[in-house]
């Protein structure tokens, strides 16, 4: 482990990644929320930011503390960078009585994700399982994910909507990163950096920082322990699939009465992967030589009526059936389908639900366990 100065060390890290040819993406404060976007220096990252999250509510405050990671993530997730909301897939041009196709260029640089939390590195693992599936790989996703450098961060101050500890995670990531940073604010304010891969190790050596002491190690454990104890287990994680109520439980209708069917939960979910393909032809493309048709892939949601269109008719015509589809896929049928949990416990769906529907509370009712975890 190494010790970084929260200002100069972070900046050195960003610059080293840029020098190594990465597109560095990290957290920025924009219009009162945390978003992920291109970062050019360590100074771009939030400073003194606190976030308050509850069901249907987000508030961000900034004070004069020098802290860099004293917040929890917003609606934005890294999904946007590896699986964009809107991407061109194919372009077809009518030439000499035939068709010429072109595909968009591959990314020119690998991504470096700066500041990923444990729930987020696990979410990337969940997406990898789905989108780099050996039978049905998404080549564009695979290209974007290739060589991704991950600088993870220990979650020091989880929000009220965080529940990663119920879903196989915790504030301190155990894998899926090249470098892990833990911000320590007791004593001298510092970032403790530990490598998770050889290239992470090499980068830390280059940034040239002091090795960590036993006291630093102890402080890292203390940060993670304090965060863990602030998140009591709320649901019985891996046991949820067998405990979840069946299709005819009356609570599905009760939730549906409050659900806006707006699709926000699925759009902010870091593991929701549904998409749709559509073709847009240039006006008169059927007749004009040289006219182009563009095929795009866009995020889709199981809350959209046409998501379940079969033979021109939606199979899941009611909000009840769509909410049930979403929750049961996320918590019950995903393991059956992909062998992993579909939810990482990040709480985005709960915070960013305008109706304030708390997935954990609903699931607790549906497994008959109350919101305290354990078996019913």
């Amino acid at each position, binding site marked *: 482990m190494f010790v970084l100065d929260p200002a100069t060390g972070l900046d050195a890290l960003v610059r080293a990644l840029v020098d190594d040819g990465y597109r560095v993406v990290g957290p920025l404060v924009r219009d009162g*929320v945390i978003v992920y976007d291109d970062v050019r220096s360590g100074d771009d990252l939030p400073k003194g930011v606190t976030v308050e999250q509850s069901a249907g*509510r987000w508030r961000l405050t900034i004070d004069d503390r020098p802290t860099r990671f004293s917040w929890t993530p917003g609606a934005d997730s890294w999904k*946007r960078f590896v699986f964009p909301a*809107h991407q061109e897939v194919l372009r077809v041009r009518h030439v000499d009585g035939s068709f010429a196709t072109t595909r968009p260029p591959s990314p020119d640089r690998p991504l470096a994700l700066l500041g990923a939390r444990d729930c987020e590195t696990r979410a990337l693992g969940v997406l990898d399982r789905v989108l780099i599936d050996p039978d049905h790989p998404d080549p564009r996703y695979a290209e974007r994910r290739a060589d991704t450098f991950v600088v993870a961060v220990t979650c020091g101050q989880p929000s009220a909507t965080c529940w990663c500890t119920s879903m196989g995670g915790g504030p301190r990531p155990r894998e899926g990163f090249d470098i892990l940073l833990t911000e320590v604010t007791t004593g001298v304010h510092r970032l403790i950096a530990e490598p998770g891969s050889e290239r992470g190790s090499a980068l830390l050596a280059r940034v040239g920082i002091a090795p960590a002491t036993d006291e630093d190690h102890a402080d890292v454990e203390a940060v993670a322990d304090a965060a863990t104890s602030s998140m009591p287990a709320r649901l019985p994680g891996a046991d949820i699939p067998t405990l979840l109520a069946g299709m005819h439980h009356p609570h599905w209708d009760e939730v549906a009465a409050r659900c806006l069917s*707006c699709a926000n939960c699925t759009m902010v979910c870091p593991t929701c992967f549904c998409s749709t393909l*559509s073709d847009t032809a240039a*006006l008169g493309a059927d007749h004009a030589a040289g006219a182009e048709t563009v095929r795009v892939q866009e995020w889709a949601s199981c809350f*959209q009526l046409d998501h379940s269109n079969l033979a021109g008719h939606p199979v899941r015509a009611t909000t009840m059936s769509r909410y049930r589809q979403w929750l049961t896929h996320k918590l019950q049928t995903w393991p059956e389908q992909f062998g992993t949990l579909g939810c990482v416990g990040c709480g985005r769906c709960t915070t960013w639900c305008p109706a304030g529907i708390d997935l954990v509370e609903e699931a607790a009712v549906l497994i008959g366990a109350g919101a305290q975890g354990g078996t019913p």
Partner: protein
Amino acid sequence: MSRPTLAVWKFASCDGCQLTILDCEDELLEIAAALDIRMFLEAGPSELLDHYDISLVEGSITTAHDAERIVDVRNRSGLLVTIGACATAGGVQALRNTADVAEYCTTVYARPDWIETLATSTPIAEHVKVDHELRGCPVSKRELVDTITALLAGRRLPITSHSVCVECTAAGNHCLLVADGTACLGPVTHAGCGALCPGLQRGCFGCFGPSEAANLDALHAAWTAAGISDDALHRALRTFNVAAPEFRDAAARLTSSST
């Protein structure tokens, strides 16, 4: 190959949707090349033909004369596509539907006896069969061009009826209702605008009307939780799509619960 003929008709409206057609500056020459525009008073052409392959209809029905005229337009049209909130929901002029029109006439006009008008403003689909509807106040330029393109190619229209939230979150905007307590109709509003207002930090005004699964009671609860008054919601629902059934009924429930 002969180009399909097009007519653009105006009923009770502000002409904004017709102007959106003219505002398709980059595509206008292509539209004119692909279609034979024979009736479009706003732009010039005024040939009364027995048949147009496609009719675009702007505006609502507010007079007995227009109620007859729309039947005539229908009879002359192959495909009839309504454009905008007036044609699809009755427009802002449908505020009269729950008011005393005679009293309005007395208040507004010096000679109310010269005014011949119906007691209601109604969408085109209440009078004749409509093949496709484009929502919005005004319609979206992109949806308009994509619709014309799809009609010419004989493809399904690229119109999505899910909520504005879908395009808002996809655009990378954060939810204003959640993050700022901003009054936003996005969760119950039909997509198509590209989340224009929320992208500029303004709550959605609902100008595309109700979405496919609009749950107004849930929105009422969400606005209340954000500290927004029933009066504000009542006003927000009674604008461009005041007569759209979901908005109209929700506003009526608010009125009856407050009295």
